[in-house]
């Protein structure tokens, strides 16, 4: 099977996940680097590995359910499994260049 359809679906899932924002930072979880990995099985089961900016954040359950809802809205996705992980812990360096620019973060910051 060609990998392209899965890659395409993953790209669509990441686009959908951009509707989910971290409430504190006010920026989407994909560009913040909070989404560590997205995979899709051939039977349409999507796996999203994600984290939060801080452990114990009261927004955690909302973020997890929001990611599930957003990924599940993509055509061809039968179900979504969101795995919340704190390994590795998130750091601002995981942000996309656009997000870093938005927050004024310089790459050579300590």
């Amino acid at each position, binding site marked *: 099977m060609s990998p392209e359809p899965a890659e395409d679906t993953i790209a669509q899932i990441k686009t959908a996940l951009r*509707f989910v924002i971290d409430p504190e930072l006010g920026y989407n979880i994909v560009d913040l680097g909070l989404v560590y990995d997205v995979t899709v099985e051939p039977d349409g089961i999507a796996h999203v590995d994600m984290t939060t900016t801080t452990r114990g954040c009261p927004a955690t359950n*909302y973020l997890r359910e929001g990611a599930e809802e957003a990924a599940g809205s993509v055509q061809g996705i039968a179900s979504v499994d969101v795995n919340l992980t704190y390994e590795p812990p998130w750091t601002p360096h995981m942000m996309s260049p656009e997000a870093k620019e938005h927050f*004024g973060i310089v790459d050579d910051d300590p």
Partner: protein
Amino acid sequence: MPGVTLSRWTMSYFAAALIFLLIAELLMVAGYGYPATAIAAPETLILVHVTAIGWLSLLLCGALYQFVPVLIAHPIHSQTLPLPALAFLIAGLGALIAGFLQLAGFIAPHALCFPVAGFLLSIGFALVLWNLGKTLWAARPLTLPARFVTVGLLSIAATVLIGVIFTLVLGGLTEHGHFINLLQSGVPVHAVAGLVGWLTFIAMGVSYRLLAMFMLAPELDGPTTRSALYLGAAALGVAILGGVPASMAGIGPTIPLLMGFAIGLLALGFYARDILYLYRTRRRRKIELNSRMAAIAVGNLAAAIVLLIALLISDNVDRYIGAVVFLFAFGWLSGLGLAKLYKITAFLTWLECYGPALGKGPTPRVQDLVTEPRAIKWFWLYFATVWCGTIFLIAEIPLGFRITSAIMLIATIAIINELLRARRLLDVKAEIRMPKGASSAHLLYAQVKKA
């Protein structure tokens, strides 16, 4: 991992706290209590306890129900206990005020106001301690900020215990010599345990975590933070555990308090170093109102300490201690409290309203719930009145103090209006206010989502 959820009754605590803040400021505007009367007069004691219990302690309890679980990544023990605790605390404060009114001659002396106040307040604080203590106990080993909170909880236990002894003596239920000695000379120990051990030490611990979170600064758990914790705990131990027996024995608490102050200065030095480091190494260059105003509040803490040292050196503590306490309570504790309330109210409201809408479409940001350029003017006005009020107290110009208190009241009402606007989503643009899945929040409590 069990999820941390919204605290159901935190907003009720905040609302009650803000009402008591307004009452305290109204009393100052009316010239009720110090500086119009003596610092130990019943009128001043009403003002002090409305501020310390009604405003600051209720604010702190409400914040702790939400943020202790965040500090330890573990859910609160009970979402139910905070409501009866709030009822006991408010009723207890009411009885305490009635007791002071008795002392002032406004209420017949035979009523048992003081013992009733002691009973109600100790039940209220015991419920708070039980709930937060059980929550912390389940999450051992504790993070450093949570250890600050633990020391603060022990301090409020000590504060209440001393206070209950005061109420028993004042209510005429005991004539034990040691207890009478404690009432006569232990008031500064009671004040230090409450204002420094409970309110300040917890504010220090929580500020480590909140400033790191809100400014994207590194979490600190190194030697300087540990030094601030252990030296601070030692300072409180010396001041309270040394001060109480010294007072009961009739020696007076001056020596343990001075020793505690000296050790506490070292702790504050480490704390100041850490806070400066957090601001310097923050990744978020453009910081929000709450972090900027928190820095002003920390500056007020430093100013209050410098003022106290100057008074100690010039042997003028008794004459001007009211100015130090005012700057400490309104510049440091209240300033930090209002700044963090501005953030926390918007954040919790966002979670309740827009959390369920995540993933269903675009949602507003927390920042869309507030209008910082409008609010920050009121915060500056608030701090300016605190500084002017301190100067008027030192200059012994009571009328000037009342006038600045009136302006402070206006600034506080304006800040409360900003909080109400955030809670009501009034600053969110109409076209994005109610996306699919969103709901509005109740003013006084949160709909708690099961973890």
